[in-house]
């Protein structure tokens, strides 16, 4: 059974149809990359799987571990092991990262019928996971994302991913706004978290991230549909030739 199975997914925001029949199968242990020009539905797809209520699903289904999750609220999906790394992480003044993560970790534990972590257990976990993204101690005491640089925000996303240990992580444009060092740290973090039991979807429109996070599959999402699937060589080809040839291929095929 696939970990995630998206079948004929149609979705819109307001009156505008964005996804026009997406099909995608993802198994445990795999890394998938979704590429494509801006405005073709990559973030919409990520948002729908994570449970963002601003999108309306008009047709199709999303099965996670064999269960349709479209009716589950976002927090329940998270407790079921789905994680969304935001393209634009939200600033939350007044909530420290430590407090935020303690609440999130313990609410997820509660969902799974586990006792909350004690203060010292939690701090130990924090220390361990901060190393994954080379996060400084001071950053963890600051309000979530408030005044963070682009790189710090994305590190914080991967740090949260490390803390929550999801089964399915969707990283939406995690590479945007990163310099080379930050990109390396973030990508190394993602690789460290990779296991045979979890899967990752990396959404990007630059090939450079895929030098660090090597995908098993590369999909091209174009005009609301996955129009091409290949291996990491497809990403290189896209980098070299842009997306025009895909449009031409599609038009020729019609």
């Amino acid at each position: 059974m696939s970990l995630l199975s998206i079948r004929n997914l149609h979705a819109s925001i307001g009156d505008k149809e964005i996804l026009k029949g997406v099909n995608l199968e993802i198994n445990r242990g795999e890394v998938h990359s979704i590429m494509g020009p801006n405005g073709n539905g990559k973030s919409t797809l990520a948002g729908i799987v994570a449970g963002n209520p601003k999108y309306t699903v008009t047709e199709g289904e999303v099965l996670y571990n064999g269960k349709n999750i479209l009716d589950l609220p976002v927090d329940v999906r998270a407790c079921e092991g789905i994680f969304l790394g935001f393209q634009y992480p939200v600033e939350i003044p007044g909530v420290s990262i430590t407090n935020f993560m303690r609440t999130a970790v313990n609410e997820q534990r509660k969902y799974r019928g586990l006792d909350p972590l004690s203060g010292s257990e939690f701090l130990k976990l924090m220390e361990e996971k901060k190393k994954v993204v080379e996060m400084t101690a001071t950053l963890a005491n600051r309000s979530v994302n408030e005044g963070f640089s682009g790189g710090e925000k994305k590190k914080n996303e991967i740090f949260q991913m490390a803390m929550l240990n999801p089964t399915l992580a969707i990283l939406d444009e995690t590479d945007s706004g990163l310099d080379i060092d930050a990109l390396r740290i973030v990508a190394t973090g993602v690789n460290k978290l990779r296991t045979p039991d979890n899967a990752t979807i990396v959404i990007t429109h630059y090939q450079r991230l895929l030098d660090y996070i090597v995908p098993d599959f590369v999909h091209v999402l174009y005009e609301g549909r996955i129009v091409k699937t290949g291996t990491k060589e497809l990403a290189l080809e896209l980098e070299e030739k842009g997306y025009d040839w895909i449009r031409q291929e599609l038009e020729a095929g019609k």
Partner: protein
Amino acid sequence: MDSIIQQMRAIRLALRKNEVWRSVDFDDFLTDDLVSPSLDDSYEYTYRCNIPDLDTDRLALVNGYCRQPLQVLPNGIVMGGLREARRQYPDLVQRYFGSCTTKTVTRSFTTMQDEAFGKGMVNPYLDINTEHYTDGLFVYIPDGVKVQKPLQFLSVIRSDHPLMLQTRNLVYVGRGSQVAIIHCDDSYDQNSSFSNNVTEIFADEGALVEHYKMQNLNAQSALLNQTYTTLQRDASLRSIAISINGGHIRNHSEIRMNGEGCETQAHGLYLIDKEEQVDNYIFVEHSHPHCHSNELFKGIMDDAARATFNGHVLVSDGAAKTEAYQSNKNILMTDKAVVNTKPFLEIYNDDVKCSHGSTIGQLDEQALFYIRSRGVSERTAKTMLLYAFCDEVIQKIAIPALRERLSDMVKKRLHGELNVCSDCALHCSTPCNGEEAGATFKIDVSKL
């Protein structure tokens, strides 16, 4: 007594259209059965306050009277009751009494409007207090003294009949001196009361005054809390008003920066529910160059609670290089809750930096989604965001022990867990038999 009540009712009528006072409606609290407190009332003064790591020097008013002897400390600080101070140190009291309440005569839009009362700021409630005050606290801090422990003013109302209080406090802070005042207004039982209190703070050159106003009264009580502050050259005021309970609270603050280089930080937080009303009026006068003022007031209103923010910054033509900022942010929990907000800048100099703004809204949907996307339930996420909303003001409290205590209290309050018996800054004298639900505060996040 009857005549005072009559006078106050008449004031309400006369000021109904006055911009400064229109939101003040104490009629429901000005009942015929109010009586003046008597010095003979011999209530046991009990006080328990258990703020970890917070050590204060306490001055208490019980029903408006100070029952502690006047003290003169080795460093020259005089503190005690105003009545007693007036007897023992008439010159000192004479020198500063009324020095901060002088009406502004500067050109001002608001004063022009007051046709009914002629020019000049109108405040008949102040006049009533000046005429009828019973007692209050007096603190004199000589020049160059850094007061180590915060001074805690406790104004406790405890009575078996409804009381009308007219209390007058006077604080003088000498040149270059520093003091923190924690000013708590509490009611001890569920009897109604009406307090018309005036506090004058005169901060001499280079002085620094922190003034924390903590208000936790029963729902039958009204509090008109007038604070008049004068800052001399290079003096600073940091004031924070935290209103958690009270039938009707009016924090009326007038701050006059009477020299160059003064700084005013005036903030407020109000968390109210049921039919409570909190009204913050703050007037800041910039009359000299290089003065700064900053106001941040935030509030959460549940049920049919009503709040008002009326901030007026007056920058007169001599006040070049002024920086003045005003901000008022509100969260309404229900359709019945009301907030009126009016940040108002009146500027007669063009070499200034000023801004003002207010928001009324619900919680940030994006932030809510972000928190929930980590597996946090909707209810917990909303509580986190409500606390975060309050935190901006709480973080401005400079005394760490007080800050932590309040942070803890606000959290409990948002969770609906705040016990009336909780030994905390705002519950130092609330009764244990709090079957009257008026003293608990519960925000129902499902309403958001």
